[in-house]
């Protein structure tokens, strides 16, 4: 279980508070108006932003003092998820060993991960020679290999077309399902939430609200969410 305990984040004039729990294995959509602090919330969980006060716990253990790489977290950013100068296989390999000194077994696992994500035969290509969808697959393959219990996604598929995005979300769902991962995904598209999430965390006016069941909250949105979704 992921717990945010009286979390207060402050960046200049911007403030965000969160006090919520996410059950293990849940798939959570984090939605809210732009500038509300969705990415900030993920940044704090991933360890890029130091909260002013409060604690973040995973499985009952506080992870706040840990470095990003030490946290039980894989993160996919909006962009720059791959190093342009490394091949697809190398980019995936970084998920296993940060020095890329891979043994045969590890190389085999990379092969498997690429097969799993539909990247067979593309290992030696560099990101520039891959399509947008393939680039997302490489990032997902790495997250799959790292197999951290908590996956954080900061709109990594925002630039993809609807069909491709659905494909990625379903691949993400499969991967997370196989590994039993908990997923927090920032999105501004309610369809993503419907398609993928079983819980929704609404971020608005400086507060991250506790998760509510997606089906329920999306069909019968509370005031803040209604404002965000507009007349639909």
């Amino acid at each position, binding site marked *: 279980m992921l717990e945010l305990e009286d979390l207060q984040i402050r960046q200049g004039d911007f403030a965000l508070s969160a006090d919520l729990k996410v059950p293990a294995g849940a798939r959570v959509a984090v939605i809210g108006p732009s500038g509300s602090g969705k990415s900030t919330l993920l940044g704090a969980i991933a360890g890029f932003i130091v909260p002013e006060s409060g604690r973040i716990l995973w499985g009952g253990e506080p992870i706040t003092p840990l470095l990003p790489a030490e946290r039980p977290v894989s*993160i996919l950013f909006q962009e720059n998820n791959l190093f342009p*100068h490394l091949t697809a296989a190398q980019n995936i390999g970084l998920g296993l060993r*940060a020095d890329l000194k891979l043994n045969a077994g590890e190389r085999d696992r990379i092969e498997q991960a690429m097969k799993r994500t539909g990247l067979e035969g593309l290992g030696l290509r560099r990101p520039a020679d891959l399509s947008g969808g393939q680039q997302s697959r490489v990032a997902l393959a790495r997250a799959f290999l790292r197999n951290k219990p908590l996956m954080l996604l900061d709109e990594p598929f925002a630039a993809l077309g609807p069909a491709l995005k659905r494909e990625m979300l379903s691949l993400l769902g499969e991967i997370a399902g196989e590994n039993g991962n908990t997923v927090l995904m920032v999105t501004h598209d309610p369809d993503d939430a419907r398609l993928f999430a079983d819980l929704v965390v609404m971020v608005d006016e400086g507060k991250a609200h506790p998760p509510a069941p997606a089906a329920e909250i999306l069909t019968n949105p509370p005031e803040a969410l209604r404002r965000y979704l507009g007349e639909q």
Partner: protein
Amino acid sequence: MAGRTQPLGAIRWLGSGAAALVLALVPGTLAAVFLRAESTGAITASDWAAIRFTLIQAALSAAISVVLAVPLARALARRSFAGRRFLIALMGAPFILPVIVAVLGLLAIFGRNGLLNAALGALGLPAISIYGLPGVLLAHVFFNLPLATRLLLQGWAAIPAEHFRLASSLGFTPRHIFRWLELPMLRATLPGAFMVIFLICLTSFAVVLALGGGPRATTIELAIYQAFRFEFDLGKAAKLAALQFLVGAIAAAIALRFGRNALFGSGLDRTIERHDATGRITMLADAAIIITAAGFLLTPLLAIAVSGLQGIFALPATVWHSVMRSLLVALGATALTLALSLPLALLIATSRAHTPAISAVEAIGYLSLAASPLVIGTGLFIILFPLADPVALALPLTALVNAIMSLPFALRVLTPAIRDAEAAFGPLADSLGLFGRDRLRLFLLPRIRAPIGFTAGLAAALSMGDLGVIALFSAPGSATLPLQIYRLRAAYRVEDAAAAALLLLILSFALFWLFDKGGRTNART
């Protein structure tokens, strides 16, 4: 902030070692000269005149360079034509041109017996003389116009294309575009460009010597030289060098305030689509500006090529030996430049907070811009003499001093590049646990390959053309190519000297081109 431990770990502190070495070599040598001084002559009225002239010529050189660079950069930014990229690269050439070679080229065009005066004479117009302040300014603009243009072109490239599209959809005239898009960019870019060129011209020595025309045009660096050589007054030389430092430090502090625009940026290849500048007059004006600038910057190079071409294959073997030595020195200087600048740039760029200590390190990296190479050379001699034979060390010392003098340029190229790489991919590297050596090897160094290549090319070319301290410690059989050119001239062999000058020109450019190209090839971005 998070990522509290430094991503590079202990490697980062190599940068402090580099900073310490710079401290030893720049203020350290000045202190050595001070300590060795027996007496100290007072700063006289003519020294104050030298300080005044130094400031005036540096300010004018910088002002003229940036003012001329504005129309040139604008014309280059909004026009696309065959060979544009090549022309921009070629117009950068004067910046890495050895001074002794450049002066020959400038005289061939602008001298009393030069092409320009021949043309004026044919038209029945009076001849012009460039000696004195005009000559100094002419040479400084020749050297620095390319740099200013480069900096401004980056400014233009940094204006988002959407802004220009927006402007044309709003029906902006060129005047409106200037007012709302270009002027704000220029306001941000010009002061920084001005200060960099001001600093470069501050310590000008060889140019002033060659074209200054007489005692009216005396810079501080020249006064330092005279204090050493004519008055044997180490104390006064050190005093003047300290004054030069002070002036430079003030200028550098102002320069740093005005932003740290990169010397190497992307976007030089991009033409900005402009829908406003399609009028015939603006097109003709742009063409005229580009052609005039190309003529100004390239005809002196052509003149050097013409005057040297005949003799280049008949050069004596000893000149070719000195070519080998110069190449060795240039490669050594390049290696040293990278060995000093990379750790320094990494230390500066990976600091997440701008602490006073980091600002100090940054300042140390720029120290040599205001330093006197003469004082560094003499100070090194004083320090080394009791320990080792400075003459035997002449070539490595030349390489070392060259590296120190290239350091500010290297830092201006590398630091922003590392900052950009960290901004884009730092979080990814952090989340993957890429720290220390792995971060360097797998992330930072591959990301900044192109700027490293550019830095190496710059350092190699600047070192290749520098007469430097070798003249202070020379031994037979240790002459570098620039020194050999002086020797040929001292032996009345003007034609051989011209051929050797062409050789130096070719080698400087070849080194720059090779390194720069090497950095770009296969550098996927």
